[in-house]
């Protein structure tokens, strides 16, 4: 790795040590000796462990939940390169079954989820091994192309050291051609602690900053100063995995669209085509894969045959979508407010509003040895209905609707919409759209 200037080096190493002490209370998986998991469990009066386990599980679920729900402007149209380190360090077995196998299986899940939540975005894959970077797939809107490339054994054998600079430069050179209304992002999964670079990486980093590319890095071993510096400069996130589950959390944090930076916050009208579907009795060749198909879509501008949308027309480069694809992104624009935990003294409800499961009663309030329990009720600030922890998680992660607000009077609903969408004055516009 190239040498950073001595001044900045000292500065950042200081910060490293501080945050390490504050945030990283629990150790990394490779420095963990053994867990005394039995210490946290306490029996209740019947000698059962169930309630204290439930309590611990609920705390865990809850931790993942609290997220930013303010209506900020988000870059819905994203262009992202996923860079995977294929150095020999990836063969380490500290993450089971091995760093590489886990990375590949998570990468596959990541790609599926990414396209599910960002249907009109594009993603490509770059791998880095033996000091060079290689592009497996270019930017495309099709999850299957990317996954097939990752499944090909030839593409994923490991060799030598990765090259940070080469892979970042390769990603940057592909990203600068994307239109400015979309965000440009790089997600790097880095197993190695070293990098083999041909030149000064700081120049590459400045280029990335200039071109508005956001780099986020997930480290698999230990924190590396240069990675931290890259993420800080490009306003990305840097995380080092503690264990398998934490690895997945770090990756999936990248999936919701990021807030748009001020520099690129001006909006643009993007030309898009809404293709019509065709069914033919005799097969014809599609323009995207040159394979015979019988059903598909025709490009709205050049009439070429496409087998699936959303995609970019291979002939005239028009973005082709359908209105449900656009609708899929609306929940990023109108997030559900976080629910607040209900204290025991106002826990009057007997069952969850949404799934009808019964809540713990007041008699179950305390565990022996005065371990504090929660009431298991979570309150929506708007409709004042109480929900259980499972519904709370499900509402915020899957449905993106508050069942309480929607199932009570419509009168409220309209005023709610007004509050939620402070910056979307003509909310009614969305409704008209579907009556097409």
């Amino acid at each position, binding site marked *: 790795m190239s040498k950073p200037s001595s001044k900045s080096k000292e500065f950042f190493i200081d910060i490293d040590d501080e945050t390490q002490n504050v945030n990283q209370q629990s150790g990394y998986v490779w420095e963990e000796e053994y867990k005394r998991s039995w210490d946290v469990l306490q029996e209740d009066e019947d000698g059962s462990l169930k309630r204290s386990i439930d309590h611990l599980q609920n705390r865990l679920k809850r931790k993942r939940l609290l997220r930013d729900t303010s209506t900020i*402007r988000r870059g*819905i*149209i994203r262009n992202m390169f996923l860079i995977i380190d294929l150095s020999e360090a990836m063969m380490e077995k500290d993450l089971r079954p091995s760093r590489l196998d886990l990375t590949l299986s998570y990468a596959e899940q990541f790609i599926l989820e990414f396209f*599910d939540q960002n249907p009109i975005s594009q993603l490509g894959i770059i791998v880095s091994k033996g000091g060079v970077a290689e592009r497996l797939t270019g930017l495309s809107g099709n999850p299957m192309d990317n996954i097939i490339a990752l499944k090909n054994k030839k593409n994923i054998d490991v060799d030598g050291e990765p090259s940070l600079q080469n892979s970042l430069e390769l990603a940057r050179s592909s990203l600068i051609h994307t*239109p400015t209304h979309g965000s440009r992002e790089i997600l790097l999964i880095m197993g190695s602690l070293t990098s083999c670079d041909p030149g000064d990486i700081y120049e590459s980093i400045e280029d990335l900053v200039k071109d508005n590319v956001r780099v986020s890095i997930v480290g698999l071993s230990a924190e590396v100063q240069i990675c931290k510096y890259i993420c800080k400069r490009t306003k990305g996130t840097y995380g080092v995995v503690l264990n398998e589950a934490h690895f997945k959390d770090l990756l999936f944090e990248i999936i919701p669209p990021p807030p*748009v930076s001020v520099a690129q916050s*001006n*909006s*643009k*009208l*993007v*030309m*898009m*085509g*809404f*293709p019509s579907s065709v069914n033919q009795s005799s097969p014809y060749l599609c323009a995207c894969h040159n394979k015979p198909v019988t059903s598909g879509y025709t490009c*709205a501008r050049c009439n070429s045959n496409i087998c699936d949308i959303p995609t970019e027309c291979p002939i*005239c*480069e*028009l973005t082709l*979508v*359908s*209105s*449900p694809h*656009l*609708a*899929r992104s*609306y*929940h990023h624009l*109108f997030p559900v407010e976080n629910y607040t935990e209900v204290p025991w003294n106002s826990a009057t409800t007997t069952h969850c509003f*949404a*799934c*009808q499961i*019964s809540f713990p009663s007041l008699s179950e309030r305390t565990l022996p040895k005065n371990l504090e329990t929660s009431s298991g009720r979570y309150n929506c600030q708007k409709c004042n209905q109480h929900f259980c922890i*499972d*519904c709370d998680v*499900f*509402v915020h992660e*899957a*449905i*993106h*609707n*508050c*069942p309480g607000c*929607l*199932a*009570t*009077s*419509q*009168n409220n609903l309209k005023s709610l919409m007004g509050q939620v969408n402070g910056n*979307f*004055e003509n909310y009614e*516009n*969305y*409704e*008209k*759209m*579907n*009556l*097409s």
Partner: protein
Amino acid sequence: MSSIKDSVTVNEDDANLLVLIIDTNQMNWTKVANKQAMGNCLTLQQILRQLLAFINAHLALKHDNEVAVIASHIGVSKFLYPIPTTRQKTRRSHGDSDQSSNSNMYQRFRVIDDQVTSNMKALFENEALKSCPDKVSSMMAGALSLALCYINRITKSDEIGHIKSRILIISVSPDSPYQYISIMNCIFSAQKLGIPIDVCKISESDNSVFLQQASHITGGRYLRLSIDQSRGFLHFLMKTFLPDRFVRRHLCLPGDEKVDFGAACFCHKKTINIGYVCSVCLSIYCQQLEECSTCRSKVTNGVKRSKTNESL
């Protein structure tokens, strides 16, 4: 859009959870009844009787089949069955009077029939709901959200993945535009969980655009019954919606039409093939504008055209 259609594997001996969403907007049911020739009116009461027969048939198919019933009413959506135990006790005493008449009835059928009818009665007698301003539509988005939360709970508690769920919507009201985003959210999460949404729409001419998309995206069945046809309501229910997800693969069921998701611009509501989409809020326009009228953001430099387009 057929990406996830029945990605969950279904087996012959799986139990089935049917979540039935009944649109109980009495205004619209009255309209339906009035349109029919005198003598053979199809009232909500008759529909309910036929639905109960359908529910009983579903339960009778397999001993471990489950059912949940949700009402999508004017201004509120509510569980009709199952309801939590504390309230159930009061209902029990309420329903005692007609117990004697049905003493030969299978216990499980009777409990469900009694609860659904008495809860629906309570819903109609609720004075507070009569003041709701919007009497045209029903709270379908809320009912769908409740259904998904309930299914989520049941699926989670069943560790071996034995229970397969589906949703059946009996709809009579027109779509409420205010619910567009929330219904779409429900549809996408149902698609993700692999839950098909079946729709039975009773209407003379109008198809429900939202619900058509719902069944298309989730791989369910959409069936529109004209008012004349709806006299054979139970017959249609039994033939189309009773088969479970395993059996369906071997049947050729009605309602497999292709749905085209045309887009309409926000400014003139014209159906368009090529449009301009705001990069911030994804509103669709048919022409270039100075300012996006939905999110009020200024549009810079107009449209970035693709390279090939310029060279053409």
